[in-house]
């Protein structure tokens, strides 16, 4: 058990300094109980990074120090003749007090260290340094394992300088890491620091970094696949319902409209769940009456103004989409139309884009065969709708992808940070329109078109 070849790290410290938050963020695991009540973590818990069942490294979340002074006193009473025997004294302490409930927490936190784990000592640098911490640090020094300290800024004050001066006496490395705000890049940087603790661990940690980078990329691609799938479904969706008379009544039409919208909203919700699942962020709480996608309805004007394109950009997009159709005619005549068709197409497309937000979809009465009259709604005709849908999805994916697993608060979106136009420039919109225009006509798309569409969306995501 002690001779495992992979590196192990015990995240230790005073109670309530964010140890579990750090572990939760690094292990991408929301199941870690995080609380402001001291003693939330009662037993050590290992979080191995496994690739196909093989452990690359393992993190241990541990309870905080409770009776540090008493332990240090015991260790000092048993001071060995040589400093390199101090680890044995710590082991002796664990062995002698294993059944003593008074030292349960300390045994839980010291055990992985004496079994070879590196030490990650966590302090809250938003609060002042206190000499009482020296007792804990001294105990850790007795363990003789490679160690580093993490400055976690939980509150709004900043005492990092005084902490750094103190921690520098005990730890090889001192790094700042805020598990709540940490980005993926910060996560990787912290791992790189951990790799420096012990030469023997460098290879494994580098492998872990590669693995996590691959995992991150995989998740981005899975999110994009999901966005493409759900967007295509929404844009091509046609709702049909049987009607009694030759012409649909107002009531039938309203009912069909409601069903159509409901399906599109359901599809968006489904996509959100899918993205949450990809990033292992299930059970996110959403604040009611705040700015969330739920509250900015998919069909609301607010959604169009935040996530959609402006009237001007829409006109340009419409013109380019129309021009694409016109260009087909020109090419068929070998340019013999002097590219007039493109110009006319562009003008018509631009006009189409100006249609108000209420003209979302086309309602048709179909199936004139005896006894089989159907009212059909869709596919979506509004030129802005695909951009609203895509922007909302990409925005949501971005928020979820960058959300730390240490966050237990509800999800709230920030309106001012995002505008559809910023991520879909004219060049990208032109490419997207190839698919959108086909879907608007109820035509099928080819795998090649979808591949290009996916690439554009991936590019757009990376721009956010």
């Amino acid at each position: 058990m002690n001779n495992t070849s992979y590196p192990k790290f015990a995240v230790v410290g005073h109670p309530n300094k964010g140890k579990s938050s750090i572990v939760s963020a690094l292990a991408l695991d929301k199941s870690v109980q995080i609380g402001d009540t001291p003693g939330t973590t009662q037993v050590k818990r290992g979080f191995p990074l496994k690739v196909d069942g093989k452990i690359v490294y393992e993190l241990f979340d541990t309870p905080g120090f409770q009776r540090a002074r008493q332990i240090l006193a015991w260790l000092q009473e048993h001071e060995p003749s040589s400093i390199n025997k101090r680890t044995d004294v710590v082991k002796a302490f664990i062995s002698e007090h294993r059944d003593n409930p008074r030292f349960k927490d300390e045994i839980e936190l010291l055990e992985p260290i004496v079994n070879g784990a590196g030490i990650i000592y966590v302090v809250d640098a938003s609060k002042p340094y206190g000499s009482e911490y020296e007792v804990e640090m001294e105990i850790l020094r007795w363990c003789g394992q490679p160690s580093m300290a993490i400055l976690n800024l939980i509150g709004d004050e900043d005492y990092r300088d005084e902490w750094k001066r103190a921690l520098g006496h005990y730890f090889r490395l001192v790094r700042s890491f805020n598990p709540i705000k940490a980005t993926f890049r910060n996560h990787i940087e912290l791992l790189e620091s951990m790799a420096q603790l012990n030469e023997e661990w460098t290879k494994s940690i580098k492998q872990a970094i590669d693995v996590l980078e691959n995992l991150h990329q995989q998740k981005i691609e899975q999110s994009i696949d999901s966005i493409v799938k759900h967007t295509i479904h929404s844009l091509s969706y046609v709702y049909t319902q049987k009607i009694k008379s030759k012409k649909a009544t107002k009531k039938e039409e309203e009912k069909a409209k409601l069903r159509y919208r409901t399906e599109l909203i359901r599809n968006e919700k489904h996509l959100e769940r899918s993205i949450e699942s990809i990033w292992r962020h299930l059970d996110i709480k959403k604040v009611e009456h705040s700015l969330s996608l739920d509250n900015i309805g998919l069909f609301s004007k607010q959604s169009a103004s935040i996530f959609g394109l402006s009237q001007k950009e829409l006109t340009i997009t419409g013109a380019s989409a129309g021009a694409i159709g016109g260009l087909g005619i020109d090419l068929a005549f070998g340019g013999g139309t002097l590219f007039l068709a493109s110009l006319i197409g562009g003008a018509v497309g631009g006009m189409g884009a100006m249609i108000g937000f209420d003209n979302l979809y086309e309602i048709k009465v179909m199936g004139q065969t005896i006894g089989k009259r159907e009212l059909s709604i869709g596919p979506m005709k509004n030129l802005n709708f695909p951009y609203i849908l895509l922007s909302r999805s990409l925005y949501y994916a971005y928020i979820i992808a960058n959300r730390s697993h240490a966050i237990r608060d509800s999800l709230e979106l920030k309106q001012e940070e995002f505008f559809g136009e910023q991520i879909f420039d004219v060049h990208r919109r032109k490419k997207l329109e190839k698919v959108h225009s086909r879907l608007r006509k109820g035509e099928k798309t080819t795998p090649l078109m979808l591949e290009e569409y996916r690439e554009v969306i991936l590019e757009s995501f990376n721009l956010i």
Partner: protein
Amino acid sequence: MQNKNLNLSIKSYLDISQLLQTYRGSHEENRSFALKEERLQKAPTKLLLKWLDANIYKITTKLDSKRYLEYLSSFSSILGLLSFIIGFLVGLGLLSYSGEAPVNIIYYLLIVMVVPILSMIVALFSMVTHGRVADFFTLLFPLHWIEKFLNYVSFRKKLSDFKVPFSLELSKWLFIERLQLFSLIFSIGLFVSLIVMVVATDIAFGWSSTLQISPNSFHTILSAIGIAWAKIIPSAIPSLELVDMSHYFRLGAKLNSSMIHNADKLGAWWKFLAMSTLFYAIGLRLCFWLFTKELLHKKIEKEFLGVEGVNKILQEFNRPFISTQAPQPEKHLDIVESIKEKIIPKEKDKYTTLLGWNYSIDEIKLSKDTTSITAIDIFAVGGSNSFNQDRDIAKTLRGRVALYIKSWEPPTMDFIDFLEMIIENRKVEKVEIYPLGTVGKYYKNSSRDIFIWERKIETLQSDKVWVINNE
């Protein structure tokens, strides 16, 4: 046994479509499966078939493939038998010899050579075209209409509650493949009828055409038709003499004397007709059937890999499964929010002793001035003190004791141990815990911090200890 399961077929296509509706496996399960089947990792279809074989038991209802294959088997048996009977009857019709006029081999050749070649060309067009154009060619096949008719017979009802998940394209290929099979059976029926008629009756063959074809030209055409077997069975190519003597005209009402004179030689045509049937109607059709069968197989493979959910499983086979989570769920701490009130307002400023937990004497004195507290004795406890030093201080205490604590630091068991020592000291009347915020916040506390301290103090269940609310 393994190879049997790894053959891609309509059955496997239907099975995977049905299985993926209810079960797709987790990434961990799928990756683990792929790693166990290392030798199949470069053959995704075979790996997928193996996965299907391993998980097929998860379908607890009747397999769609079973129902479909039962239907296909009934359908094919009936149409196969029907094709054979029709082929046999057509053969009988073509070869029926009344004794008055000879059997015109041109009719026969039309059926065994021209019609198969034409139908194969139409099938080829149908194969290479898509959508409505392909549908048009399909309409040209009688089988299409027979199939439509058979939709109304009883065994088709077996599939009434099951939607075949084939794409239109795959359905077209299935249709073309079956069409070739039934055409082959039809030709076999035709061939059998030829043999039966040749053996059982004496048929006089002749040839007659409205077109003015000379026996020489006709002989050249026949030699071209029989070029494939001319060297192997030369007797199966009619001689110019036979062609010449077999020529007859309807207008003559009676056969010419040459024909009657050489009646025994006219039967020699059967070898040519038999070889034409074998080569064009059966051989060529057999090759075409095998060709469409192979193309159908490729189409099934393509569609098999395109079934909704298959791509995800294939990706999971190839992508390493990365896990970062703890294998065991955490034992959650039950946090009791409702507690007995342990907070008192600040009443008096005078205390017998003022203690500062984890504060230095200087810090205590500074805080004392800020909080306007007076005390006879002041001690620093916790921090760099030893446990024994604190115990000695606890023993000397008496009267009312004020205890500064850092409100942002949660109470540790070390602190509780110290507090218990004070509680045990009977000379101490009351301990008032005075939480202080950071200097940066002018010693102000947050209500959450006070709450945490209050909750911890409550666990001591002592009437001596109280927390002062100085928010």
